[in-house]
């Protein structure tokens, strides 16, 4: 069938598949990096105190961390493969620049995190407490480092630098390694993203604590987790202000069409900040409550800075200046406005909610310390992690949808990046499989993690000096079947 080979149709399906798999992947990655910090901090505390309670807490967080981390690792393979499988022409175009950070990510970060994860899971009895602590931090460091490399790659697609496009438009060639790696949006994107995942970790930590307060079970741990989450949360939420400002400035500077879509601004001029509203695309106006010039202020600290509107960024373009762009594929330079607008404002509103929730958690903790607190408040904090979750996903929708119709901004159109060798039918089959398989994984993960949280940290008797038998990944399965044939260990 013609349709299944049509570039528009195939690239649309490939986008759908990428969106599904990357969103799923990025449910677990932020949790891993965010909770990784909580885990490493808890382990550090245990290392210092050797208190059985801290040991229970560190094992508790390790379990949740491992269960989550492994899904992030496994679904990350999808992403590395998908450039070649679904975006072959894209890969040919960008390989000279985009491939290096991916290879570096595997070499410098994946090896680090996977090897030391093995030690963290299985090695507690085999190495000293100090080396174990170092391993915990190395796993976390590895995951943060891998985020750096992949965000370098992503940032280059948003704000390409340090390259030349061959005169025949066939591919981009690297001319300046540091220019490409530290392109205009790398640092802003990295700080913005990492801070956002740490906020999520903090909110999960608070939520688990609030759950114990709600259940009146493990109340001491409950208070401890709310407090720990609250501290990390306050620091990271405040840090988000300069990081978000940096990100906004880069978008304003480098991606005018995205900025215009974020605020639904059609005419050139100072950019307003809408609190809530929608874009009426017919009349080219934003209906809602807005603060005049505030987006200009956020991006440049000046209410009157003028930015181009969507009417200016729509194109047409001079194709001789864009050798990688096929004239027949180009249909204007603007992203889907409503989606970008709403996703952006959702993110902003949810940032406000995060501040509110930190205050709620503060009130809850104060009450809990006095032994008197409202259950309703604890309930709210339990559902708190949904807020940064939604903000993170909608932020990425702004970044990725806002870049459309480009896959590499102003260099290559998304529609031209598809794989001619893959038919639409094949992608439909794999989308269906991804949906089923990922649902199974999600259910498996949710059952386990909720089970761990319900069970809570298990304080075992001991003086804390002796690590005792470790039940990190559960020995229930073995002890049930092992009684019959008791075997001696070799060597």
């Amino acid at each position, binding site marked *: 069938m013609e349709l299944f080979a049509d570039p528009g149709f195939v690239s649309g399906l490939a986008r759908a598949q990428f969106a599904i798999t990357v969103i799923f992947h990025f449910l677990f990655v932020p949790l891993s990096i965010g909770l990784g910090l909580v885990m490493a901090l808890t382990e550090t505390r245990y290392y210092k105190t050797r208190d059985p309670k801290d040991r229970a807490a560190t094992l508790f967080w390790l379990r949740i961390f491992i269960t989550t981390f492994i899904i992030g690792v496994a679904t990350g393979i999808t992403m*590395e493969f998908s450039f070649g499988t679904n975006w072959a022409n894209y890969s040919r175009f960008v390989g000279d620049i985009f491939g290096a950070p991916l*290879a570096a990510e595997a*070499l*410098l970060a994946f090896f680090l995190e996977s090897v030391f994860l093995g030690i963290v899971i299985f090695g507690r009895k085999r190495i000293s407490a100090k080396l174990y602590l170092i391993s915990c931090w190395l796993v976390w460091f590895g995951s943060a480092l891998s985020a750096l490399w992949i965000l370098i790659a992503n940032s280059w697609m948003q704000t390409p630098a340090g390259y030349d496009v061959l005169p025949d438009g066939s591919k981009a060639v690297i001319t300046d390694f540091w220019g490409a790696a530290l392109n205009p949006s790398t640092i802003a994107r990295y700080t913005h993203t990492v801070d956002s995942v740490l906020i999520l970790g903090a909110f999960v930590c608070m939520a688990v604590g609030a759950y114990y307060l709600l259940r009146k079970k493990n109340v001491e741990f409950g208070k401890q987790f709310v407090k720990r989450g609250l501290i990390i949360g306050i620091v990271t939420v405040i840090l988000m202000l300069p990081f978000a400002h940096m990100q906004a400035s880069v978008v304003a500077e480098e991606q005018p069409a995205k900025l215009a879509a974020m605020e639904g601004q059609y005419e050139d001029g100072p950019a307003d900040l809408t609190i809530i509203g929608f874009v009426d695309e017919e009349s080219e106006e934003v209906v809602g409550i807005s603060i005049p010039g505030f987006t200009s202020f956020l991006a440049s600290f000046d209410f009157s800075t003028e930015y181009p509107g969507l009417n200016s960024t729509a194109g047409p373009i001079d194709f001789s200046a864009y050798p990688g762009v096929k004239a027949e594929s180009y249909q204007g330079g603007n992203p889907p406005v409503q989606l970008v607008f709403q996703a952006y404002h959702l993110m902003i509103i949810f940032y406000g909610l995060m501040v509110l929730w930190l205050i709620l958690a503060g009130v809850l903790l104060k009450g809990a310390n006095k032994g008197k607190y409202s259950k309703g408040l604890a309930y709210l904090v339990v559902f708190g992690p949904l807020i940064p979750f939604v903000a993170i996903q909608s932020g990425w929708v702004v970044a990725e949808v806002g870049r459309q119709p480009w896959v590499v901004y102003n260099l290559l159109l998304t529609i031209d990046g598809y794989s001619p*060798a893959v038919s639409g039918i094949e992608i439909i089959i794999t989308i269906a499989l991804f949906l089923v398989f990922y649902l199974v994984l999600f259910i498996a993960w949710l059952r386990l993690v909720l089970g761990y949280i319900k069970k809570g940290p298990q304080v075992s008797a001991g003086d804390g000096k002796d690590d005792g038998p470790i039940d990190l990944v*559960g020995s229930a399965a073995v002890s049930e*079947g092992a009684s019959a044939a008791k075997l*001696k*260990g070799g060597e």
Partner: protein
Amino acid sequence: MFPAELGLHEFLQILWYLLVAILLLGYFILDGFDLGAGILYPFVAKTEEEKAIVRQSVGPLWDGNEVWLLTGGGALFAAFAPAYATSFSGFYLAIMLVLFGLIFRAIAIEYRGTDTKWRKFWDGAFFIGSFLPALLFGAAIGNIIGGIAIGDTLPLTGGPNLGSDYTGGFFALLNPFALLCAVMGLVAFITQGAAWIALKAPLDSVVRTRAIAARSILHIVELVVFVLVSLVAILFVVPTFAPERVAAVFAYVFAGIFIVGWVVTRLFITKGNDLLSFLGVNVGPIALIGITATSLFPYLIPAADNPSGVFTYFLLPGQDVAEKGLTLFNSGGSELALLAMTIITCIGLPLVLIYHVIIYRTFRGRVKVSEIEY
């Protein structure tokens, strides 16, 4: 085909051809034994404790091993993007099967111990997730050695290789030679797995007894399959090679290494030395990757003039179309990109080797039942 002069750029391209081969070899050797262990899992381990022994033997190690594949893929993308694009999109459904296998296997290994309710599901996922990549690894290599049908709008040297897409369809990938290579790879992986379990299982365990038996039989099967693949290759595949495949003659050297390695390993296996047997079976992967690299050089993906019909292809593999193939020169990255990658590797590879020393030292020796943690 070959550039007139060999400068720094060409040297780097050749270096990266070797490095990609070495990364794939690293994957074959290291992940080989844990994929093999996963395939043998339902057969050598029956009780919960036996299953736990097998899982424990690969538990701390498999994740780092698998990164060799991700690094290999990343290196292919970075150094030879058109080859990465053509192979990954051309083998789409097969790659997706590998992917689903790797995903489920990863999660099965970590969840199996704790998730008592889904035990059977995770056991199955561990097996199938190990089986699919082990089978398809060889199938992909077989197709590439034989050459695949490639679209004909390929620009010549230095070009972007746009249009060098696979045009043969899914079923042409199931040609006899590729299927034989799939079996070759599969048997090699399982043999490594058997040798590994024999090395790691407690001395007086039933698992070890079964693994030793499997190791002995599989090792013979490996030789039989190797001879069969070699015969088919020499009779039907090598004659289709373009003369540009200048290093193909050295494949015979690696075939010799395979045979010598096999004989020596047989002695170790007969003597029952677990460590030397395990080291010995790894000569197989070395030789097989060596044969692949030499018979392809300077190609990454040779283009074959495949007849379009499945049945005609089943009778005869297509003749190489020398100028359409993706070589390390026409699909290689720019000098600066490869230089940057080389520097990154010089920093990263020593670290990677140190990590491996650390983890293999930490978990040296046989699995102790008292230590089983899942």
